[in-house]
């Protein structure tokens, strides 16, 4: 039941992605200065948004999993982090391609780019940390702690372009954008969100099952012999 709902969300996501990308590639106008490469924005920005969202979800789940040590929190948190890391990696790759096309370099130590890279390293580091800890409870607590600590970087990724001068573009609003660009951007954002939910759910379930597999049942209870004390 739950499974089919999530599967449905994923499928809708894929469908939306096709529609949105079609509009983005063939219907929306090219950008004035950058030309056709700018169309990479229709995946770049949704990836960025959903990655930030995934890490935010992981942050909330981490707080939950410190609060009550329920296993579910941990599994979902891992799913969210993995999703975020994948999207973050995609974001970096797309961004680098875009940068090569418009700025002429693959990489620049610009604040936005730097903070995004740090974000990827931080959360990938948490996944690494998890693999080093054999005990499930400790793994849960420690990765929750590391997630909360790492999350401080996430708002920085979002706001850094406003706080420091940056090569990278500052946020625009729908008012400052061509409506023909806003539509495919919106569609693709929901598309990637749907796919991300499906992916996170799969990973969370896997994590859950992994933990279940570790958890062998206790041996059958032995009888207790009680001798009266004189």
């Amino acid at each position, binding site marked *: 039941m739950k499974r089919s709902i999530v599967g449905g969300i994923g499928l809708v996501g894929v469908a939306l992605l096709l529609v949105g990308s079609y509009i983005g590639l063939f219907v929306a106008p090219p950008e004035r200065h950058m030309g056709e490469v700018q169309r990479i924005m229709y995946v770049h920005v949704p990836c960025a948004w959903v990655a930030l969202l995934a890490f935010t979800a992981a942050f909330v789940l981490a707080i939950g999993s*410190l609060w009550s040590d329920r296993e579910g929190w941990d599994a979902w948190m891992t799913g969210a982090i993995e999703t975020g890391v994948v999207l973050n990696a995609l974001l970096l790759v797309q961004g680098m391609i875009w940068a090569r096309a418009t700025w002429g370099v693959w990489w620049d130590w610009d604040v936005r780019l*730097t903070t995004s890279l*740090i974000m990827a*390293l*931080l959360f990938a*580091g948490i996944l*690494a*940390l998890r693999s*080093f*800890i054999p005990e499930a*409870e*400790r793994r849960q*607590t*420690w990765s*929750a*702690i*590391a997630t*909360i*600590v*790492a999350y*401080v*970087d996430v708002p*920085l990724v979002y706001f850094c372009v406003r*706080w*420091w001068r940056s090569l990278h573009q500052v946020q625009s609003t729908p008012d400052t954008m061509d409506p023909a660009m806003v539509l495919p951007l919106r569609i693709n954002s929901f598309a990637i969100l749907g796919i991300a939910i499906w992916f996170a759910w799969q990973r969370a379930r896997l994590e859950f099952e992994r933990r279940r597999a570790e958890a062998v049942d206790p041996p059958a209870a032995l009888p207790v012999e009680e001798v009266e004390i004189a």
Partner: protein
Amino acid sequence: MSWVRQAVIVLKKDALLEWRGRSRFVSVLLFGVVTLLLFSFAVGPDSSALRAGAAGFLVLALLLSSTLGLAESFRLEQEDRGLEGLLLVPVEPLAIFYGKALGSTLLLLVLAPVLVPIALVLYAVELDWLSLGQLLGIWLLAAAGLSAPGTLYAAMTSRLRSQDVVLPVLLFPLVVPVLLGSVKAMALALAGDPMEQMRSWLLLLAGFDVIYWSLCGVLFPFAIEEG
């Protein structure tokens, strides 16, 4: 008993151990010095490149020393489970955190009077008193910024087998803002700050310090109780 008093006792204990194992302080120091030296070998005899990188090298030496110092401090706690002994007394986890973080900050501060002059000489930088003051202020902010998350992660990784290596992996990306902020600010202090950019970097450092000194304090009890 108030945890503040406990924190002071923990700090004093660490200072005593530090003093007993002077060797350790000397070698952290030496490590810093040698790192500075190595950087100048690595970059070569081109003194303008050296001067340009001086701030960066100084901060890197600070960073590496801090990692080593913290890792060692928690190794002593694990040797005969001293930390567990503290928790059983009981010492408030908060006291352990702030005691250790403060101790680490102080240790890094003590490095300044040695490392800074060496860097200035090696890298042929000239400095007036104002800039020197700025430099030390930045040093303090950076030391504090490295110590808080460093203490948290050192406490966690000291229970892992390979703490020496896991610690930097977790810590380094986290403290990149500290690193960047202090490198930029120091470079401005060394080379002059015509465009008044220093303030924003100092704010970044101070903001980082405030956030992590409180956040890590909240998280530390969870980290340390995990048996």
